[in-house]
């Protein structure tokens, strides 16, 4: 039996080995071998993660924090950073999500990417992504987290631009990378500040020192900068616009990176540093504000989108916003709970959408779909489960987590609750709109596409069914106390947020209030579903292909509130103008002028100087003698 510390270091090792093996032999390995290696490495990591999880469960709650140091990485002056991994309830849960969902998505990709010429390249990127994501959540210090953070950003870039022959896709990849860089700048500055303030970058030292030291202005600054990093990675206002464009990547990538794992890195990071946030109410307020605005804003954009993946992308942004609302309220475990359930049902929805796209030969426009439930029965079934889960219909996963967020919001005030409720009702509406437009009514696809419409191969449908199962039962890990018993997930994560809880004001709703809230939310949800049914099934409403027929408001929403255009106008245009100015004046006149002038000067001077070299030896000797005489007489007189 290998020791636990060995097991811990093995978790990220296998995806790394898988990546190296595939990347170095991409042209030699057959597709089958590649698929087995890539999925197998993640499966092994998943099994190890399970063992670690149960190891952790067998320990007493206060001992559930295992740290293993591999080697000292940087040691210079007062600064030292080690490659060391930390396994505690939070990272253990993240490991299960990353490797579990990651494995299913790897299997799904075997079918989805089967005919792609970049098949092997795709799997090497996926494995590399899993490796970096594991590094991000397992690292026991800020620097290692930063390495993982940058690494997943890189993989995200590579995978968004996977089909790099399409210029739009490359542009989307660049956009994602640049947006993330803006956030990463905040993160790295925060890490530097943490080192300056606490003299260490190990979580254990920093968090305990912060808890002992209490709040301060520098702490507020640190937490805000960390949150800037989270804004970039987790696609919050104002850095969210890259995520919808990131749908340019293959669908499994959208599911794995842009729904289930990477975009939740921000949530993970805030929860990891929860004590810092608890001590800085200003930052908490900021998170709450950004979260609620993003949630509502993105949900409203999703209402009018016609690309099946774009709807899901905005839905992801919106759900991430809801998670930040929970974090901003100090309900850290709730945020993690929603993240976990969201990972399962959003991955499910994305993969199901991928299955639809796969079946329709790459069609992504929901106006060209409709009536697909006869053609794609399994996809239809799992999609319905996903929609029910995200809509919060009991007892699907989303119900419990979303309800917990709503309950926490209610504790803090009606306004936040109302906004969160509105968001979740909008979510219900656009998800059912998507469901009805895609699977119900008359088929609107072209006849030749429809005649080839087919259910996906088992390698795709089996992961879908597994995720569907998770979406059904996943909610029970955070089973609310109001129905009796205890909340297992909250209890599991309790040691991590215990210090924060001592600082936060204790709120609790009476069971009656909580049950009433649940009933109200579910009732409203059903009303919204009926409204969507009437609009999109009974009245057969299909979004107009022609923009002229829609109202100004709809058009604004369709254009995503012109945010991209706004950024273009106020940020990109001035930057380009500045670049143009610098090129024309600084570069052409200044630098080029200086360099050319010195060159021309030498050329001009030598035009005259070379006349001295006539080839007449007498002249040379004469000059030489004159020179000697001058030097000698100078000696004489000076």
């Amino acid at each position, binding site marked *: 039996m290998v020791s636990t510390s060995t097991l811990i270091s093995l978790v990220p090792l296998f995806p790394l080995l898988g990546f190296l093996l595939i990347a170095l032999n991409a042209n030699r390995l057959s597709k089958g071998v590649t698929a087995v290696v890539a999925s197998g490495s993640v499966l092994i990591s998943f099994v190890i993660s399970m063992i670690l999880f149960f190891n952790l469960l067998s320990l007493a709650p206060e001992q559930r924090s295992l740290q293993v140091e591999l080697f000292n990485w940087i040691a210079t002056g007062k600064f030292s950073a080690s490659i060391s991994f930390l396994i505690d309830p939070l990272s253990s849960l993240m490991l299960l999500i990353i490797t579990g969902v990651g494995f299913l998505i790897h299997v799904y990709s075997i079918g989805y990417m089967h005919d792609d010429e970049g098949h092997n390249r795709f799997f090497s990127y996926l494995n590399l992504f899993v490796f970096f994501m594991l590094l991000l959540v397992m690292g026991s210090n800020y620097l290692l987290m930063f390495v993982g953070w940058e690494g997943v950003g890189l993989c995200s870039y590579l995978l968004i631009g996977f089909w790099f022959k399409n210029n739009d896709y490359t542009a989307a990849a660049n956009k994602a990378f640049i947006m993330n860089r803006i956030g990463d700048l905040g993160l790295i500055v925060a890490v530097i500040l943490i080192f300056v303030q606490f003299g260490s970058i190990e979580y254990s030292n920093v968090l305990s020192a912060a808890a002992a030291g209490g709040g301060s202005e520098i702490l507020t600054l640190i937490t805000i900068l960390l949150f800037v990093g989270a804004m970039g990675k987790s696609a919050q206002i104002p850095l969210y616009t890259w995520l919808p464009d990131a749908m340019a990547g293959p669908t499994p990538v959208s599911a794995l990176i842009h729904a289930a794992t990477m975009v939740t890195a921000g949530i993970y990071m805030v929860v990891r540093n929860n004590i810092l946030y608890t001590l800085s109410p200003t930052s908490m307020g900021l998170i709450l504000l950004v979260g609620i605005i993003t949630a509502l804003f993105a949900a409203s954009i999703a209402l009018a989108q016609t690309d099946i993946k774009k709807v899901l992308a905005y839905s992801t942004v919106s759900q991430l916003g809801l998670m930040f609302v929970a974090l901003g309220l100090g309900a850290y475990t709730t945020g993690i709970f929603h993240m976990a359930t969201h990972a399962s049902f959003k991955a499910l929805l994305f993969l199901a959408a991928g299955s639809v796209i796969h079946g329709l030969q790459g069609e992504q426009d929901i106006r060209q779909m409709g009536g697909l439930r006869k053609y794609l029965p399994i996809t239809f079934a799992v999609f319905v489960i996903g929609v029910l889960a995200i809509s919060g219909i009991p007892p699907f996963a989303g119900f419990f987590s979303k309800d917990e967020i709503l309950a926490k919001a209610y504790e803090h005030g009606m306004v936040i609750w109302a906004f969160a409720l509105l968001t979740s009702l909008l979510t219900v509406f656009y998800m059912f709109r998507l469901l009805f437009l895609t699977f119900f009514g008359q088929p609107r696809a072209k006849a030749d596409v429809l005649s080839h419409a087919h259910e996906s191969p088992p390698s795709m449908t089996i992961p879908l069914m597994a995720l569907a199962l998770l979406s059904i039962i996943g909610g029970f890990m955070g089973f609310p106390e109001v129905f009796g018993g205890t909340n297992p997930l909250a209890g599991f994560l309790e040691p991590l947020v215990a210090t924060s809880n001592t600082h936060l004001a204790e709120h609790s709703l009476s069971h009656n209030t909580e049950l009433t809230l649940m009933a109200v939310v579910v009732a409203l949800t059903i009303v919204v579903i009926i409204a969507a049914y009437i609009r999109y099934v009974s009245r057969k409403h299909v979004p107009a292909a022609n923009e002229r027929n829609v109202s100004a408001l709809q058009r604004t929403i369709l254009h995503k509130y012109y945010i991209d255009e706004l950024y273009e106008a106020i940020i990109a245009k001035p930057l380009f103008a500045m670049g143009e100015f610098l090129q024309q004046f600084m570069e052409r006149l200044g630098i080029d002028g200086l360099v050319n002038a010195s060159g021309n000067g030498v050329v001009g001077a030598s035009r005259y100087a070379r006349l001295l*070299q*006539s*080839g*007449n*030896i*007498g002249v040379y*000797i*004469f000059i030489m*003698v004159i020179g000697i005489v001058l030097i000698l007489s100078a000696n004489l007189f000076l």
Partner: protein
Amino acid sequence: MKTLQGIPLDYYLWLSAALFTIGVLGVLFRRNAIVIFMCIELMLNAVNLLLVAFSNYYSDASGQVFVFFIMAVAAAEVAVGLAILMLMYRNTKTTDINILNRLKW
């Protein structure tokens, strides 16, 4: 003032300077390579004269050793130089030094 075999040191210096100047001017203004060559010899010997004079003046033999070296080197130089002149004459049928400006690149 100490004299060298009855002649004051100044005389040697002036003679040496005169010989050297004649040599320099010859090199500068004559175009015949052989004459230039002889003028170089003149300069070398002016220096030799100076060295011998001072050697005697200070009763130090090292100056005379220098002179022997210079004479040996000058002999070698003459051998090489005359060979070059021979070739030059064979190729150009003249000993005019300015013909050689064609050697320039």
